[in-house]
């Protein structure tokens, strides 16, 4: 069943010239990120084509959120570069959509569900341009897709966790991007929302979009994703789920071998200013 899906997808990829001719949806090269001199990600290399649903999996503090934020240029890189569709990702933001973590938001903010989703359209508007009728239509379509249309005029605090996540997803849909980064879209949602979200993600994947999804639940990771990115401060493994999702690699990701890396990072942090000087 799963293999069927994948081969079907491959054949469509061959039929439509766009994804094959184009540069990879995302290419990350030698990406290193440090917080206050403390390295949290070391030398990450990733290359993904169009139409892939990629799960980012790893223990707490592995740098999963950091990876997608750094890839989008929201954090300064210590080294490395990121390209989307053959151009530096920063110059290609229109084609990149983002779902942040739910906890990062002030849910009491004076904003309605429809307002939040409308923000997804901002990337398509000029600097001074106001949202047009078409943008409002798209907002309603996207809300309908996640079955949140009846809540369009609600203030966002009056929603359940699953509903809040659906609003974020609707906003991502409204972005009409080709490459998505989603930070724990399944965190704190009910079972029916989880089903709804994963089928929506698959739908997006089937229409040729590439999705990077930070995921914390190993029991579903293998089911949900075409490819897995096993992360623990460095790239442990990246590839097709059935090749990568092995007991050895999972053990390597979650196991204790990496403490030495953390210790080195701590040592660098304590030696203030040392890393920079040594680089030059």
């Amino acid at each position, binding site marked *: 069943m799963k293999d069927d899906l994948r081969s079907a997808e491959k054949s469509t990829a061959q039929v439509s010239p766009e994804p094959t001719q184009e540069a990879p949806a995302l290419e990350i090269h030698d990406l290193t990120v440090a917080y206050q001199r403390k390295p949290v990600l070391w030398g990450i290399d990733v290359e993904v084509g169009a139409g892939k649903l990629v799960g980012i999996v790893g223990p707490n503090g592995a740098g999963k959120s950091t990876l997608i934020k750094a890839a989008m240029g929201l954090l300064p890189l210590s080294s490395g570069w990121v390209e989307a569709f053959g151009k530096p990702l920063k110059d290609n933001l229109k084609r990149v959509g*983002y779902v942040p973590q739910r906890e990062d938001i*002030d849910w009491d903010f*004076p*904003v309605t569900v429809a307002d*939040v989703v409308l923000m997804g359209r901002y990337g398509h508007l000029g600097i001074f341009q106001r949202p047009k009728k078409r943008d409002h239509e798209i907002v309603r379509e996207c809300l309908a897709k996640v079955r949140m249309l009846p809540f369009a005029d609600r203030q966002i605090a009056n929603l359940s966790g699953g509903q809040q996540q659906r609003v974020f997803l609707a906003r991502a849909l409204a972005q009409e991007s080709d490459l998505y980064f989603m930070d724990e879209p399944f965190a704190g949602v009910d079972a029916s929302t989880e089903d709804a979200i994963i089928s929506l993600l698959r739908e997006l994947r089937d229409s040729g979009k590439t999705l990077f999804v930070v995921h914390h639940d190993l029991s579903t990771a293998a089911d949900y994703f075409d490819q897995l990115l096993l992360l623990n401060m460095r790239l442990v493994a990246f590839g097709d789920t059935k090749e990568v999702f092995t007991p050895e690699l999972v053990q390597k990701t979650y196991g204790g071998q990496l403490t030495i890396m953390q210790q080195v990072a701590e040592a660098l942090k304590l030696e203030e200013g040392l890393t920079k000087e040594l680089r030059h």
Partner: protein
Amino acid sequence: MKADSGVGKEVAFVKRWQSGRERERERGLGVAGPSQRSTVLRQRPSSGLLIALAIAALWTVAGVGEVQAARISHVTDTSVGEQVVRFFSMRDPLVRTAVIGCILMGISSGLLGGFIVVRRLALVGDTISHAVLPGIMMGYLWHLEKDPVALFIGAVIAGVLGAVFVSMIRQTTRIKQDAALGIVLGGFYALGILIKSIIQRGAGGDQSGLDDFLFGNAAALSSGDVILMAVVTGLALLLVGLFYKQFFVSSFDETFAESLGVPSQVFHYLLMVLLAFSIVVALQAVGAVLVSAMLIIPPATAYLLTDRLHKLLLLSVVIGIVASVGGAFFSFLSTGLPTGPFMIVSAAACFVVAFLFSPSHGVLPRIFRRREQTRRIQRENTLKAMYHLIEEEGGVDVVAQSGRRVSVESLMTKRGRDATEFDTEIAALVRHDLARRENGSIELTETGWTRAQEIVRNHRLWELYLTNAADIASDHVHDDAEIIEHVIGAELVAELEKQLKNARIDPHGSNIPVVEEGIAQ
């Protein structure tokens, strides 16, 4: 502007809006005409109303402001009515200048305050408003007079410096935002007070207005001040209007905004600069001690009244205007009392009203809703007791024959109520058309019967669900169900029934009532 035949009257009126300490200056000027308004229209703030607000009270107690109680003017030759007409007709250029200044201040502080409140930067606004003081004093030292441009530049420099210090302390040490704000607020403000004291001890220059920067004096606004206010307000309106989208999205979700290519940091600093500008121009009218209240209270009031940012900003501006013009008006009426505290008290009064009565977020409507809910639950408990009695007596199957009727005594015993309590309870049922009282017995109406069935069904379904699906012992489930029966909606009930495959017997062996289609909601 031009002194006309009414100049005598104007003078009398102007005098009334002055207070004791300015008389010194006035003596040298002789009779003041409107052309000299900028020097004449100065008034001392009084301490009386400052006490109303905690911060102000602190400073007063500390004696920092050297505030003197203003003297209620001796001029009483016009009625209150006449004064009201004078104020609102704005024939008097002095009143006009003050009111225009107040309106502009209401707009700029309401607008920018709206952003800082939703961005949780209220204390940053407070800190900047205190941090500008040494800059004001240095600006004064430049020419030894109140040159608006020199004061403005000095204040903006000090304000920005204060903001920079806050982030420096936060980023380079372990000290967190709140303490960093406290350090900068206190340190800069104290420095400003020191410089002021030194200036005032020394001779020379026009020192008269310096205290106004602490406690504000709307009546002392010069046309130059008002022009500066107009420029700042215009700039704020223009930028927020042009970049509303960007301000909106970066206020709500900074990271997402950046993922769209909106430089959140740039808009943050733009907001901070505009904030510093508007604080500086508002300082003359409200004073450093209270200006942050003008930035916080109107938007906080609006926050309780609406759930959308653009409405919040609009309401905040309206409340800001009402409070500042209202403050100026009251201070005008009471002759010589300070404008700043009046404005803040007016704004605080608006807040209290919103706090108590806002339909969505007010305290009283919430208490009212809760009381309504308590009453509904009580009614439903009475209905449930009646259902249990009917069930015990004849079984629900024979309801059709025996009627949905219970005797007063049995229900009273079941509910454990005395006669008065019982009468109230039944009266509530009757009022809601749930039951009828007929000599010695209570009969449920159609609606009452349906509701009673629903409550009992909800209770038993939930108990069954807990024992079946969650493996909780059957003697542990009753208490929860007592609350849950009242709050689960039709959707959840349907889901429960689906999961329980329409089971009809609860864990204690009682029947789960079936509510007929169409009647059940």
